[in-house]
């Protein structure tokens, strides 16, 4: 008794887990909760989402609603326990359902097709009847021919007064849905392997520097097991525009100090070494403490605070290439570091590099200098601040923009050109190892192929019963055709109609001869 109850419980749990109702339910739950996850910004600062929620629930209720949502895991939903649980239920459902159904499908594929009584052919989803003035054998031959020319393998069974042809095509097409489902399970497996045995991190490498770790978070590093060096980083632009054409860095892999690999990587073209892939993902200028600069406006003698963000960087890297064009002297290009000074040859004028901005623009109308916050870390239009000292004048600071190159110095018309700033960009790399990705790719191929087969190849079965209308092997014959398919019934019906008309044309043709 007890034993039987246990089996019942097991049995009904199994039924439940195999049911398509559960599948429909999880489809709906996953879809609906995903919608919430796309509206609420995932992993964002609380203030952002509170502002968002205020639009739906009003300012007063928003913080409370936020707390409830946050407690339910909606702020990091796709990693929350309950979302994971629905994904697990989804896969268990799929596995149980497949295990439950597969043996039946397999048996029905393996079971040889049998001739059927005329009545059951008449009640098939597709059924046709016709009469022909001919003999059993002629009708049989013609149908046989027509079926064979459509590549059906025909079997036949004869009785006293009748003969039956039966055939089927693509019986293994019934398995394709299992492959579709299997590929979904494989994707889950691949994702779990990737999450368990792989890692996703990032690292910024300053030009000329090396690293042997990547970062999983600002405080957690991951040893690579080898060293990567960034030789240089470069952004290429379309013509004179600010639309980037390519972000590229030259990376070198070093093992025990020896170079083992070198590659220029670009977006969509990463470097891969020992299973670890380095993707070009961002770049920037080494960023330090900001300081404000006080300059004197030469015309109004008013002291103004220059607002462009200045970037402090270590002195040992980065150099400013400056071309000097003294009024009556030799053109001269020099490279300087921050804090370095230079003289205009043949004069007492002295310049010192005091500041730098990766992006500085001069407003065309007002002439004011400014930096868009958005581009602050990008080397769009570098500018250098130079303090100029000339005898008998108060020192002042002027900005020299790379995009706006030649500047006449107020003192005596000497020209100075800021050619370039070299050496303190860094390349931002995504670093990933995903041992599950191959399983995912294989699963994707399987899914693509099997979905296609699933929709466009169907298992088609035909029965054709040919019988004398009156007993005694005489008179016209009655032909009953039945068909079954697992998909695209309308198409199959058309195919059968065609087969019939071909066969009956041929039969008529023979009786005329």
């Amino acid at each position, binding site marked *: 008794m007890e034993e039987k109850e246990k089996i019942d419980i097991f049995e009904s749990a199994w039924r439940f887990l195999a049911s*398509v109702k559960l599948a429909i339910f999880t489809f709906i739950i996953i*879809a609906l909760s995903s919608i919430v996850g796309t509206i609420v910004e995932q992993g964002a600062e609380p203030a952002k989402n509170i502002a968002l929620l205020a639009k739906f629930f009003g300012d007063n209720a928003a913080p409370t609603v936020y707390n409830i949502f946050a407690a339910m895991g909606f702020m990091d939903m796709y990693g929350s326990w309950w979302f994971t649980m629905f994904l697990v239920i989804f896969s268990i459902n799929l596995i149980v359902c497949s295990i439950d159904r597969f043996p039946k499908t397999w048996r029905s594929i393996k079971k040889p097709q049998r001739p059927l009584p005329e009545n059951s052919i008449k009640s098939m989803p597709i059924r046709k009847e016709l009469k022909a003035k001919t003999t059993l054998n002629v009708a049989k031959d013609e149908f046989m021919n027509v079926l064979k020319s459509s590549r059906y393998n025909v079997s036949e069974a004869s009785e006293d007064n009748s003969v039956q042809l039966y055939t089927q095509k693509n019986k293994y097409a019934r398995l394709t849905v299992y492959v579709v489902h299997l590929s979904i399970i494989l994707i889950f497996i691949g994702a779990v392997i990737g999450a368990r045995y792989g890692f996703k991190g990032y690292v910024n490498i300053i030009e000329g520097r090396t690293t042997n770790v990547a970062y999983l978070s600002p405080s957690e590093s991951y040893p690579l097991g080898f060293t990567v060096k960034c030789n240089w980083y470069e952004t290429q632009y379309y013509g004179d525009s600010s639309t980037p054409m390519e972000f590229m860095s030259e990376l070198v892999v070093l093992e025990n100090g020896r170079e083992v690999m070198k590659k220029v990587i670009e977006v969509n073209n990463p470097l891969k070494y020992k299973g670890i892939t380095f993707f070009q993902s961002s770049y920037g200028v080494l960023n330090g403490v900001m300081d404000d600069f006080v300059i004197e406006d030469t015309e109004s003698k008013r002291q103004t605070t220059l607002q462009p963000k200045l970037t402090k960087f270590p002195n040992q890297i980065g150099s400013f290439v400056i071309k000097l064009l003294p009024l009556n002297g030799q053109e001269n290009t020099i490279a300087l570091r921050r804090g370095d000074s230079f003289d205009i040859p043949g004069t007492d004028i002295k310049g010192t590099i005091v500041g730098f901005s990766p992006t500085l623009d001069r407003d065309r109308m007002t002439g004011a200098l400014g930096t868009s916050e958005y581009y602050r870390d990008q080397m769009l239009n570098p500018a250098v601040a130079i303090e100029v000292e000339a005898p008998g004048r108060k020192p002042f600071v002027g900005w020299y923009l790379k995009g706006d190159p030649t500047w006449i110095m107020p003192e005596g018309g000497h020209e100075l050109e800021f050619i370039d700033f070299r050496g303190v960009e860094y390349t931002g790399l995504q670093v990933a190892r995903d041992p599950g990705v191959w399983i995912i790719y294989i699963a994707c191929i399987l*899914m693509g192929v099997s979905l296609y087969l699933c929709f466009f190849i169907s298992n088609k079965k035909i029965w054709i019963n040919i019988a004398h209308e009156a007993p005694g092997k005489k008179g016209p014959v009655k032909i009953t055709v039945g068909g079954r398919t697992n998909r695209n019934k309308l198409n199959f019906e058309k195919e059968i109609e065609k087969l019939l008309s071909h066969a009956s044309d041929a039969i008529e043709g023979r009786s005329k001869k």
Partner: protein
Amino acid sequence: MTSSSFFDISAGAYIAAVVMYVIFLVTRNRTVGIVATAVICFGFVSQSIALIIRWVNSYYFWMEAHTSSGVVEGILRGAPLRNLYESLIFFVWCTILIHLIIEFKYKNRSLGAFVTPIAALALLFIDVSGVSKEIEPLIPALQSNWLLFHVFLSFIGYAAFAVSFGAATAYLVVVTESRTEKPYIFWSIISGVFLIVLLGMGIDFISLTALERGEIIRNHFLKSTLRSSSSAVVLVSWIASLAIIFSIWYLGLGLKKVFSSLNLTANMLDDIAYKSIAIGFPLFTIGGLIMGAIWANSAWGKYWTWDPKETWSLITWFVYALYLHARFVGGWRGKRVAILSVVGFVAVIFTYLGVNLVLSGLHAYGSG
């Protein structure tokens, strides 16, 4: 002639075709029907020419900037699937193509009244939303063959879903019997909303042309009506919208009579709705989800990040998977699956436009 004048011709032809298909539905005049088909073929040819010209131009545009690039690379990078504008145009092209195939195969042109408005809607949307029509340089993340196949296949899939939507709506019209039936209310509201958006964008378009001031066009989507800055206009628009939905609901039964006299049978519409999904689902799976994931993996090392665009594609995929299972295993038939097909297409629209315009994310590369 330039590519954009051919586009303008085709847009004009498609919008004229909408009117003619509707007249055809009402009058059932054969000549009108033939003219409607002719106009749409003409529009299709001129759009194809425009696409080719644009492709050639983008090819030279690419080659000019990338002097070391090979010819094949230039052809791939020049393919007119590079931004929201081009993808909308391609979507319209595919939808019209599938529509013509169906019209030819089923020898029935009444479905045009349901499919052409979708194309017209997309074209009007381009003008009122102010998406950029320029040939723009490709930013680095978009220079990928995977991305190209991804966009190409997804949009054929979307177009197939659009046709399924048209057929499913028509199916609901044909099979519902009374105004109090839920599926009847559903289809009258859905087609009402489509009509309202179509009209609203038409008004946007007219007011935009009237006020043309040479300024940069920003997002004017429904700004002349439902999203107007004047609350009186908003109020009137809401009343008008409700009136439209109400009239469709009230007059819808008449439409059913028209349909049955046009040989639009429930079986045929159901068959078209299913077949379009049978074509769209594998294409969307392979192109939309799989190739998108491969592209993301090759660009960022992550094939799936749950960003809004990816998540919405997954939601769309689930709705159509639901359709297939409900239909083939769950035993759902008729109205219920037709409603799912409609819901699926609403999800498609959101994946395609809503995410770019409403939500922002990794993929929102075409925002106006």
